[in-house]
């Protein structure tokens, strides 16, 4: 992943956190706000390196916590945990398959809030919990799953539009050319 792609991911994380805080349309509809960082982490883990995962987890987590009642830093650990797990098994994942993207988006978007809640409770905080939390996790999971393939599509288009693709290497070498006839 190039530096420009890393910047795209970071800029998207910044916008995603702002959108979550500024627009509550989805929350009005189903009573749950979607978290857009886990789908982004799925993309980063499958397309980028460990640097992208680390930077996205730290920046995204801190940005989210800075405008939330969450203690600062609590969202970083779940994000990096999910990123590292996907990164560890990415050689076995068909990353271009929509189904794989959906499943990973579902798993990541359910795991991140669940892990955040576990960390919050472990550190002595009392978040709002109840049977409704199961509904929240389900909606966040399904919403995250649906957002993940468009996320891959968006970044693929951005990369095609803005990042230079490497010229394909050929086996032709000018110094090894056989010249026929008299020169």
């Amino acid at each position, binding site marked *: 992943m190039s530096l420009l792609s890393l910047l795209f991911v970071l800029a998207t994380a910044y916008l995603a956190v702002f959108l979550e805080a500024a627009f509550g349309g989805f929350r009005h509809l189903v009573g749950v706000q979607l978290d857009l960082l886990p789908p982004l982490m799925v993309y980063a883990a499958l397309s980028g390196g460990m640097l992208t995962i680390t930077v996205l987890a730290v920046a995204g987590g*801190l940005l989210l916590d800075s405008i939330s009642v969450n203690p600062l830093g609590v969202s970083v650990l779940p994000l990096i945990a999910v990123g590292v797990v996907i990164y560890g098994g990415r050689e076995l994942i068909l990353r271009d398959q929509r189904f794989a993207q959906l499943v990973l988006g579902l798993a990541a978007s359910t795991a991140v809030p669940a892990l955040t809640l576990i960390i919050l409770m472990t550190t002595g905080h009392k978040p*709002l919990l109840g049977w409704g939390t199961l509904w929240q996790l389900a909606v966040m999971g399904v919403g995250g799953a649906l957002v993940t393939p468009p996320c891959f599509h968006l970044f693929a288009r951005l990369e095609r539009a803005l990042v230079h693709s490497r010229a394909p290497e050929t086996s032709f070498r000018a110094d090894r050319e056989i010249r026929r006839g008299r020169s």
Partner: protein
Amino acid sequence: MLKRPHYIAVSLVVLLTLIILNLPSRATARLKLTIGSLFLPLVGLVHSADQLAGKATGALQPRGELVQQNETLRRENEELRLQAALAEGTERENARLRQLVGWQPRQRSRFKLASVILREPSNWWRSVEIDVGSRDGMTTNRAVLSPDGALVGRIASVRLTRSQVVLLGDPNVHVAALVDNETRDMGVIGASGPLGSGLVELGYLSKSANLKPGQTVRTSGQGGIFPRDILIGQVVDSQPVEYGFGTVARVKLAARLDALEEVWVLTE
């Protein structure tokens, strides 16, 4: 497969996070303020876009409709002025009677209007950010009211130009409340359910509490943060708890917390 540098990177992030989580609350607040200020340009952009859209809508509205609206508002204003004048008379009378009885005079409340600029992105807290901060004289624990005068929450943290308001129903907000009935039952407003249906729990009520649906719940003034007699909501139902030694009621909040756009902050 993960390699050694990967493990080192992850360990460093975990260590950094643990350090941040264990920082003193003042340092964390400053760090939150610094990182949160990165959103200021976007907040400004959305505010300007809102204003532009408002202006455009105003320009497109027919003149006749505007004149009619103006007339309605003028009448409403006159009615409110009359009510304010009558209330002033009652207030003077109240102050005089208080003086005669020897009670402390009641202080007049002052409010500052603020706009809601951001909402809580997580689903397990209830909070909003408003566009007034320490620059406007805000401090923590000031009561925040809806435009209709119903209680919304309290200021939890203050930044230079913004403040974070924790809303009723958040686990960090507890309000001493009084039910408007014959027995004047007192309890404490606590957390709501995770889905934010506008219902909160009124706990610590006595077992003999005489609660009926529709009874009004107001702040009792105890606890030192919220002044007395601010409307909270209405009782929906109640049930005995703790093997019949206490009662818990569900209260429907008067303020629509999911649709807040502007709020009043109590300044004095």
